Each structure stands twice: as structure tokens, then as C-alpha cells.
């Protein structure tokens, strides 16, 4: 989706403001929000990539102004709403509806540590071998999916060199839209800054992207 989140190469977003000794959470509610979103009960088989996609559907001006954990809350709400696990009225009122049954399978506190250290792997074994070899020149396709993708606009149509092969990984473009893991070979592709930004760019700089096989074609 060509939305505002796809920021690579944008000007006008201001200076990088690094805060020294930044705390993990700036307000208590951020910690609560972060915690809720990590451990809440998700819809069954919820595909992790859909979280990122839903965030990308945030209205562009809100994407630019709402703080990070506000955006996590928005996404959590969308996930529960679209699965019918909460209703718009319940969300508005902050209370379960009168007929709502209470589940008893929420994650327990003593399970959190294990949960955070035992995340689902995106790696998958693939029957077919990789199409591209280390050192091969490849071109990132010119595609404009209006759904989720991890091929940023600034790399589309650009040529680079495969430097790593990571084996098979879940494909976000499919996974985010409930189409299953649809794993593909994943590569790191190195582009020169000049290839991406033109002759005025530094001739020595490089930008590396991790790109799935369907994002690429031989160059």
C-alpha cells in the first residue's frame, strides 16, 4: 500500500530528535497499552503481518501525529472489531455488553516470559530451491499493491545485488490478508545510493533491503 508509512526518501519530516536516556514508556498508559497489545487474546490464527497492515490503514495525518502506542491501540481495536470480539458500542462505552460471556483463557502473568521468548518463527522450509544466487543482479519489481507489502516505493524498479539468502520466510503480502503464510525465499539485496537517489548521491553508500522472491526479477 502506497501510504504515508512508506517514508523512505521523504523530505520535510523534520530533524531526528533523539532523547538521551529515553525511558521505555513516556507515560504510564503507554506501558499499559504496550502490555495489552502484546498479551491480549487475538483472534484465532491471527496473522502477525496483519498488525502492520492495519497500522498502515491509519488516516495519514493521524499516522504522522499520533504517538507510537496510540497507534498500537488503534490497531488492537481494529483487530478485535473486525473479528467481532468486541463491538463498537462496547469500545465506546469501555464496558462489555450485557450478553457478553467472559472467557477464562487469557494469558496468565506467569506465562508472559515464556511467551516473549518463544515467538512464532517466520522461517519455513521450502521444497523449491532459491531462484536467485548470491552475487546475482536483480531488479525490484514495479508493483503497486494496495494491500500490504514490504517492498518500499523507493526501491521499485531499481537494480541491486543479492548478498544473502535467508531461506524461506512467511510472505507478508499474503499473510496480512489471511491468505496463509505462502512462504518464499527471502534475500538481502544491496543497492547503491546512486541507483536509488541519482547521481547526486554519495558514490560509496549502500542501502540493503530484505526482499522476497516475488518482489524480484533477474536484471
Amino acid at each position: 500500500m502506497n501510504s504515508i508509512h512508506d517514508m523512505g526518501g521523504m523530505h520535510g519530516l523534520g530533524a531526528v530528535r533523539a532523547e538521551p536516556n529515553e525511558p521505555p514508556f513516556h507515560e504510564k498508559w503507554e506501558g499499559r497499552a504496550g502490555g495489552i497489545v502484546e498479551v491480549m487474546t487475538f483472534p484465532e490464527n491471527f496473522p502477525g503481518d496483519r498488525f502492520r497492515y492495519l497500522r498502515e490503514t491509519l488516516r495519514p495525518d493521524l499516522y504522522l501525529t499520533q504517538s507510537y502506542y496510540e497507534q498500537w491501540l488503534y490497531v488492537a481495536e481494529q483487530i478485535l472489531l473486525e473479528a467481532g470480539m468486541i463491538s463498537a458500542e462496547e469500545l465506546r462505552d469501555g464496558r462489555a455488553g450485557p450478553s457478553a460471556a467472559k472467557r477464562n483463557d487469557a494469558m496468565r502473568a506467569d506465562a508472559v516470559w515464556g511467551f516473549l521468548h518463544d515467538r512464532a518463527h517466520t522461517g519455513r522450509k521450502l521444497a523449491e530451491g532459491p531462484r536467485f544466487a548470491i552475487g546475482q543482479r536483480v531488479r525490484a519489481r514495479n508493483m503497486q499493491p494496495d494491500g500490504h507489502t514490504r517492498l518500499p516505493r523507493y526501491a521499485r524498479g531499481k537494480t541491486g545485488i543479492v548478498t544473502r539468502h535467508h531461506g524461506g520466510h512467511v510472505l507478508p503480502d499474503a499473510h496480512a490478508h489471511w491468505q496463509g503464510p505462502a512462504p518464499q525465499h527471502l534475500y538481502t539485496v544491496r543497492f547503491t545510493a546512486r541507483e536509488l537517489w541519482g547521481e547526486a548521491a554519495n558514490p560509496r553508500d549502500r542501502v540493503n533491503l530484505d526482499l522476497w522472491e516475488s518482489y524480484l526479477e533477474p536484471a
Partner: protein
Amino acid sequence: MSQHDHAHEDSAAIAHHHDIHSELPSDPALRVKALESLLTEKGLVDPATVDAWVETYESRIGPRNGAKVVAKAWVDPDYKRRLLSDATKAIGELDMLGNQGQHMVALVNTPEIHNLVVCTLCSCYPLPVLGLPPVWYKSAPYRSRAVLDPRGVLKEFGLELPEHVKIRVWDSTAEVRYLVVPERPAGTERLSEEQLAALVTRDSMIGVAKVKA
């Protein structure tokens, strides 16, 4: 300092001044009132001149101008030829050149080719022949989608074009301004030039609509 560095510093210095907005009310009516009062006090604007600009685009300049150009092209093949070969001159014959419309190109729609005009970067629009642009023309949805999905855009305006029609989307990135000459609808053979002009809508001269008889 290179040209690039100069532009960079210049832009940074200007951008700095946009941060005043954290100190101003969000209601534009209040801010604009304060600005007019300030500019008047400093002699930087004459309120009567403001009135005159408003009145000019309320009464004297509007899409009726463009409609006259289109109707003339429909009834007068020689005029249409002149319009296609040098629209600036031909529109000038009708005394309809002006600011934001001094460099004109006419785009003729046919059953095979449909032209559509946009300004993706801001809001460039042929003011002297169409007056002031509508909000939708200047807004993000149209600006972003017209070049990417013109058929989807036209559908939103209720216009569906057959697959064989070639759509040409003209992005007004310079000072050249584009006037679409829509197809003359069937059943209008007996209408006078004036009656024809009355049928031509602003939207058809941007390219998001066809003219109805």
C-alpha cells in the same frame, strides 16, 4: 555554496517559520481576520482590493468562458483547427487568456481517447476559462489517484469508460494549462452555439464527466 546547498538552507529557513502554528488558534476564521487587520494596518493590503479579487472570480471569470470555447469548437471546424494548433492564440481570440491561463493546450475527447487533467503537486488549474477549482480537484484523493487509477476515479464521478478507450491523464506540472474539449453529445445538431455552451459543464472540461444533451 552550490545551488543545491543554497536551496537546502533557504528551505530550512522558511520551514522554521511554519512552527508558529503551535502558538496560533486552530480556527482559520480568527487567524485570517487577524491577518487582514494586520496587513491593512501596515498598508500591505487594501481591503477594497480584496473585495475586487473576490468579485472578479464570483462574477466575471468562471466556467462559462470555457463553455464558449468548447461550443465554438463544436460548431466551427476552422476554430477547432486553430484551437488544436495553437490554443493560446485561439482562446486569446475570445479574450479569455489571463493569469494561470496564458499558455493553453486544448485536449479533444473522442470516442477512442479520453483526456483528464490533474495537478498532483498542488492545484494548478486554468483559471481564466474555468474559474476557481473545486475542493475535490485540490484534495489528496484526486491528486493521488488520478495518475494511478484514472478509471477508478472516473467511476467515482459516475463515468465508466469502455476498455478500448485510451485515457490520457495530464499532470499540470508547469505553467501550461489544459482545457478538455468534451465530445459533443448526440441529438444537439439543431442547437445554437449559445444553447450548446449552456450544456457544457465545468466537470466535462476537466475530464471527469461527459456532456449530456
